């Protein structure tokens, strides 16, 4: 065998197997951190298992799921999660579109503003929530002080279902709007100015141009943002957990008025130590997230180009 042959063969091997080697890290990492935990969670969800006592676990089939579907606190948490999903996702996308539109104009210190919108997103979620919880405080909160000024009276934000959802949604929207706005802004800049010029010649007003040209052309980004926002908001945990600190944090309010499914999972797993049950909640939450994200996709897909 000549040296040339060897090189040629090595080259053939190289082209045949190198692509697999290049993509292997992704699959390895996905297998270790994605697939294995998922399968293991399914396995645990079929067991009666205490968090601390893995040896005492027993296989009980679908019993956890049967209990779960008859559990009013689970459905309460599911309702809260869907309510918070609606209250966060829709305003997030609309505000982000509006802000992106503003940033797309020729204003001075544009870069400064563009960097500014991402700031809420890079601050720690714990810090944000603790500060907002203070703003929404019952006795000495800034927001109640403002309401008082206009004679609107005090609101006990944590006590009510609607008021607590509004407060939590505010935190989430504040944190994530800038992130989506930057995604929209990037695609807005790719829209050729000639389209707007033509529309202006046809006599279309600004808002008509926005809804008829900008939004339809942003459809892929809006779908992306909706799915990202959905998967994030369906597993909302830190905001409701920190909104009502103290010993009862995991129950999400005195009557579970803002307990999300993720928080219920946390309560069952780490307070009640019911590892099997909380795994079942995790699986159902994952399925629900896929369904809701699919719903969001179907709705945003209907955005039409005229």
């Amino acid at each position, binding site marked *: 065998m000549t040296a040339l042959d060897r090189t040629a063969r090595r080259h053939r091997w190289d082209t045949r197997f190198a692509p697999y080697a290049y993509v292997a890290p992704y699959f390895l990492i996905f297998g270790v951190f994605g697939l294995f935990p998922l399968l293991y969670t399914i396995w645990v969800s079929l067991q009666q298992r*205490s*968090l*601390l*006592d*893995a040896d005492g676990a027993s296989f009980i089939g679908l019993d956890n799921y049967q209990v779960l579907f008859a559990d009013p*606190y689970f459905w309460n948490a599911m309702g809260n999660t869907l309510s918070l999903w609606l209250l966060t996702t829709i305003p997030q996308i609309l505000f982000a579109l509006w802000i992106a539109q503003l940033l797309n104009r020729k204003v001075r210190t544009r870069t400064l503003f563009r960097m500014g919108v991402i700031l809420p997103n890079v601050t720690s979620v714990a810090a944000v929530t*603790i500060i907002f*919880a*203070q703003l929404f*405080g*019952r*006795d*000495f909160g800034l927001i109640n002080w403002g309401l008082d000024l206009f004679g609107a009276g005090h609101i*006990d934000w944590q*006590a009510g279902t609607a008021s607590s959802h509004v407060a939590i949604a505010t935190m989430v929207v504040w944190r994530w709007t800038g992130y989506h706005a930057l995604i929209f802004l990037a695609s807005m800049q790719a829209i050729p100015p000639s389209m707007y010029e033509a529309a202006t010649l046809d006599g279309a007003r600004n808002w008509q141009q926005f809804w008829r040209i900008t939004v339809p052309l942003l459809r892929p980004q809006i779908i992306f943002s909706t799915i990202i926002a959905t998967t994030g908001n369906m597993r909302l945990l830190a905001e409701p957990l920190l909104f*009502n*600190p*103290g*010993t*009862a*944090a*995991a*129950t999400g*309010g*005195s*009557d579970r008025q803002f307990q999300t499914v993720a928080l219920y999972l946390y309560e069952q797993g*780490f*307070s*009640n*130590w019911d*590892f099997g049950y909380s795994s079942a909640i995790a699986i159902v939450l994952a399925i629900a997230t896929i369904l809701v994200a699919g719903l969001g996709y179907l709705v945003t897909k209907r955005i039409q180009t005229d």
Partner: protein
Amino acid sequence: MRSKTMALVCAALVTGTMLAGCGGESGAGGKTKLTIGLFGNFGYTELLKEYASTHPDIEIQDRTASYSDHHKNLAAHLATNNGAADIEAVDSGYIAQFKDTPDKFVDLNTKGGDQLRERWLPWKWEASLGKEGQQIGYGTDVGGLAICYRRDLLEAAGLPSDRAQVAALWPTWQEFMAAGKRFQASAPAGVKWFDGGPTVLNAIVGQAPVGYYDRSDNLTVGANPDLKQGWDLVVDGVRADLSAKLLYSTPVWNTGFKQGQFATVTCPAWQMAKIKDQAPETAGKWDVTSVPGGGGNWGGSYLTIPKQGKNVDKAVELATWLTAPEQQAKVFTSSGLLPSTPKLYEDPAIVNYRNPFFNDAPVGQLFTDAAKNLKPQYQGPKAGDVQTAIGNAMQRVEQGKQNGEDAWNQFVGDVQKLTS
């Protein structure tokens, strides 16, 4: 060979002094590094410095978290056999839950604990014993009960402010509520009689001979008349607008101390440290007197050694030292935590101790008396979670979401669910 590879990996991962994650046994300069996981104020800051100065080979790092975060994190660390501190504090509300899995902890009886048991109150020692007599933790403080009150606010409402006279206002909880109604009639604007229903209720529950569980770990919640009577009494107080409706141990509760939103708060000994930390500017305005109904316990903790630690023996040594009578005495005078070692209840340095922050109240006398009268209450496996559930129920009444009966019935149902 392996250690060489390890060292190379460590060197590649981190440079400089941040070698904490590698090996774990050694801190800077070849010292043994011990971590201690705490919640709230244990009064250990000075003690840990003292220990480190007499043990130059040891470096101690304390991590303090909030009460519920601490216990939830500990459960997670024990479940994964990873991440627990060398010494972990456990509150009496959680000790029964943790002692159900004694094999996660070092059995202190195998480390000389059985020789030391005389140090502690017998019930304190027994409350942390596992099924087969394994000792999972050494007692730190006990709660004891008293009432802390604001002299200036009581005076402003025309009530007496002298300790003995104040104590005479409330021999029982009924009279405590009656005094509250008198107070509320002429109280300064925005000031309520007590901080929140759940806090008062916890003290009343702590005095009952049987709490949430009987000694065979059966829940008593639906059938225990003491609980229901205490509940009705506090609901009545809430309806009479005596409650500032602040949820115990939250930021708004802390603000309540600073703003003087309430005149009294139930004071297990450890609460005094909290008040002092929360509102140092109120020094001298507070005073301490005896609790209605006498006796009772709320809280108090243990130091446990998770088995997963790498320096178990050194950790045991430190925990033994921290909970020894001499150190408990220091914690009492520095932070007010009541010792769990009865020998100190006769010690003149303890008995004659007065707390300057609380208007020189004779807290030594007060709390050693409380400790001697203390009828220990058995804490069942999920006492901490039951306490959360009853607190939520009381909060529903305070928030006007439910009446007393509905909130109580939902609580009983919640507790059943918790243990099913």
